[in-house]
C-alpha cells in the first residue's frame, strides 16, 4: 500500500480523495493554484504545494509543475480525480516514467477509450450493441449523405475527440446535415484541436444509463449496477440516481453483462463507467466509456456500500478485488443533486462570489460532498459546482421526500444557485413517476416558460 499520494485536483473531489487516504493511513499532498490558497483541500492535506497561478492551464493542467511537486514531496502515487488530467494518457505515461503510480487505468486504455470512434468500433467487435452509424471518420458531404440514407434520420454528428456535449449537432434532413457537418467540424477543431467527426443514429427520447465498473489488475471485473443520469441540461448531468426506475432485473442483468464484456475486451483495470442509451422499446446501445472516477460516484457508493476511491487506491497498489459479482447487493435508493453556482432564472449563467451564509443540510439519509465553507470565495477560473447533495433512503419515494427536505435546509447566500431548480425537478410529475428521458429538463424549462 502507498505511504504518500499526491492529489492532482481541487475542490470537492480533492477533499474526497484526501478522506479516503486518511482512512487508509496514507499521507496526502495537495497541489493548489494561487486562487485556491484558502481551499479546504489545502487545509486538510498533510502537505501542500502551490503549483501556479489561478487559470487551470498554469496550475491544474500544468504537467511539469505537478510532476515537480510530486518529486519534491517524494510521493509514490498520484490520484488525478476527474476532469483536468484524469483522462490524459500523456500525463499517465509521464507519471509512469517518473516511477510514480497513476491511480487509474493504463495509458493504453485511456487512449483507446478516449477516441470515441475507436471506442465504438472496439466495443462493436466485442459484441456490444452500438447505435447504427458511420464506422469511420466522415470526410465528405457525399459520404455523410450516403450514411444518412442508409441509417435514416434523425442523426447526430459527434466529435471523435469530444466530450461534454461539444461538437455535437442533431439533423433531421439533408440540408441541415451539410451545414451541421461543417459547423460540427469547426467546433471540434476549436474545442479539441481535432476536426474528426462521425455520424450516429439519433435515438429519440433516450435514457442515459451508465454502469459502474471495478476491475483489478488480475482480470477480475465486477459491475456495481447502474446509475440513471437522464436529467441533463446541454449534456451536463444535474441529477443522478440508482437504481434506475427504467430497469427491471432482466434488463439490468443483460446490460451489466455487456458492461463487463466491454471492460474485459480492453483489459481494463481500476474504475470506469460504461455509458449506454436506452430507447423507449427497451433496446440499449453503447455510447462511450469514461476511464476515470465520476462526479456521481457517491450514488453507487450509497446503494452498494463500496468506497470507490479506496478501491481505486487498493487496485492501483496491486491488491485483488475483495468482492465478487454475487456479493453486490442493492440496498435502498440513492439520488444526487449537483448544486451549481448558476442562476436558473437567467439561463444558468455562472455566479462566482463570496459565500456569506452557509447552512449544510443534515439529519437522516443525508450526505453532502463539498469544498465550500462560510466565507469561501468562489473563483471564476473553475467549474461552477459547489456541492453534491446525496440522499440514501429505503426506496425512491422516501429518497425524494428526504431530498426535498434537505434542499429546503441548504442555504448558500447570497450566491445564486441551482437549488430552486432542483426543487422544481423533484416536484414535477414526470420525475416522480420515473418516466422521463434526456429531454426532461428541456420539457421542464418549456413548461415554466409557458406558465409565465
Amino acid at each position: 500500500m502507498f505511504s504518500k499520494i499526491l492529489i492532482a485536483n481541487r475542490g470537492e473531489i480533492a477533499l474526497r480523495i484526501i478522506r479516503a487516504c486518511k482512512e487508509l493511513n496514507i499521507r496526502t499532498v495537495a497541489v493548489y493554484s494561487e486562487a485556491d490558497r484558502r481551499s479546504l483541500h489545502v487545509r486538510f492535506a498533510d502537505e501542500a504545494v502551490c503549483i501556479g497561478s489561478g487559470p487551470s492551464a498554469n496550475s491544474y493542467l500544468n504537467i511539469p509543475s505537478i510532476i515537480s511537486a510530486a518529486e519534491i514531496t517524494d510521493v509514490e502515487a498520484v490520484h488525478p480525480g476527474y476532469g483536468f488530467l484524469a483522462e490524459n494518457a500523456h500525463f499517465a505515461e509521464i507519471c509512469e516514467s517518473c516511477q510514480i503510480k497513476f491511480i487509474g487505468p493504463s495509458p493504453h486504455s485511456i487512449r483507446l477509450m478516449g477516441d470515441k470512434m475507436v471506442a465504438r468500433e472496439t466495443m462493436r467487435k466485442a459484441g456490444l450493441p452500438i447505435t447504427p452509424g458511420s464506422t469511420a471518420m466522415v470526410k465528405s458531404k457525399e459520404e455523410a449523405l450516403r450514411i444518412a440514407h442508409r441509417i435514416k434520420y434523425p442523426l447526430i454528428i459527434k466529435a471523435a475527440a469530444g466530450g461534454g456535449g461539444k461538437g455535437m449537432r442533431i439533423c433531421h434532413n439533408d440540408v441541415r446535415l451539410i451545414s451541421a457537418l461543417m459547423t460540427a467540424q469547426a467546433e471540434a477543431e476549436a474545442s479539441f484541436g481535432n476536426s474528426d467527426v462521425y455520424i450516429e443514429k439519433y435515438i429519440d427520447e433516450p435514457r442515459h444509463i451508465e454502469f459502474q465498473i471495478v476491475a483489478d489488475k488480475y482480470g477480475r471485473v465486477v459491475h456495481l449496477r447502474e446509475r440513471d443520469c437522464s436529467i441533463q441540461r446541454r449534456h451536463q448531468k444535474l441529477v443522478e440516481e440508482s437504481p434506475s426506475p427504467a430497469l427491471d432485473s432482466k434488463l439490468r442483468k443483460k446490460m451489466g453483462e455487456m458492461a463487463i464484456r466491454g471492460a474485459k475486451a480492453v483489459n481494463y483495470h481500476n474504475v470506469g463507467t460504461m455509458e449506454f442509451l436506452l430507447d423507449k422499446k427497451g433496446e440499449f446501445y453503447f455510447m462511450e466509456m469514461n476511464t476515470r472516477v465520476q462526479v456521481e460516484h457517491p450514488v453507487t457508493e450509497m446503494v452498494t456500500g463500496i468506497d470507490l476511491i479506496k478501491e481505486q487506491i487498493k487496485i492501483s497498489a496491486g491488491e485483488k478485488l475483495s468482492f465478487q459479482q454475487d456479493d453486490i447487493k442493492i440496498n435502498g435508493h440513492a439520488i444526487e443533486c449537483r448544486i451549481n453556482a448558476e442562476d436558473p432564472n437567467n439561463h444558468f449563467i455562472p455566479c462566482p462570489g463570496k459565500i456569506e451564509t452557509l447552512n449544510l443540510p443534515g439529519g437522516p439519509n443525508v450526505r453532502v460532498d463539498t469544498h465550500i465553507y462560510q466565507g469561501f470565495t468562489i473563483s471564476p477560473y473553475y467549474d461552477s459546482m459547489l456541492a453534491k447533495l446525496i440522499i440514501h433512503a429505503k426506496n425512491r419515494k422516501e429518497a425524494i421526500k428526504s431530498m426535498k427536505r434537505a434542499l429546503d435546509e441548504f442555504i448558500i447566500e447570497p450566491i445564486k444557485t441551482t437549488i430552486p431548480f432542483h426543487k422544481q425537478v423533484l416536484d414535477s410529475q414526470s420525475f416522480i413517476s420515473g418516466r422521463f428521458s434526456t429531454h426532461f429538463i428541456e420539457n421542464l424549462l418549456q413548461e415554466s416558460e409557458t406558465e409565465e
Partner: protein
Amino acid sequence: MNIKEIKEMIALMNENNLLELEIEKEGMRIRLKKESPGSDESAKIVSVPQFSVTQEAASPQTQKEEAAKKLIEVKAPMVGTFYRSPSPESPPFVEVGQNIDAGQVVCIIEAMKLMNEIKSEVRGKLVEVLIENGHPVEFGQALFLIEPA
C-alpha cells in the same frame, strides 16, 4: 525571544489594532500576522508546506537597510529544488551584499531533472537569501530579498 515577549507583542498588536508586526532582536526575526475580523473563516490555515519558514535568522548587516527601504522579493516561477550554484563545486551565483543587474542569473531551480536558471527582474543589492541550498520550493515562494537601486 521568549513566550513573555511574544505575548507582549500580541498585546501591543491588539492595543493598536495592528494586523501585522515584525520585530528583529538579537539576530532573530519574528513576524506575527493577525486576520482582520470579517475576513475568511479559514484564517486558521497554517503554513502547510513543511519547507516554508515563518522565522528567519536575519544577518546583522541588513537590519538597518531593511528598516529604511522597501525590499523586493524574487519569487520562484516554478516548483522544484533550489540551488545557489551552477554545480556543487562552484561558488554561488550571488552573495549577500552583492549588486545584482536586471536579468542576472541568481539561482537554479531544478524541475524534472532540468536545471532552470532563474533571473532577477530588478536591479539592486542582494539583501537576503531566504531559502537554504537544496531545499524544495513551490510556485510563488520568495527566494531572495533585493533592495532596489
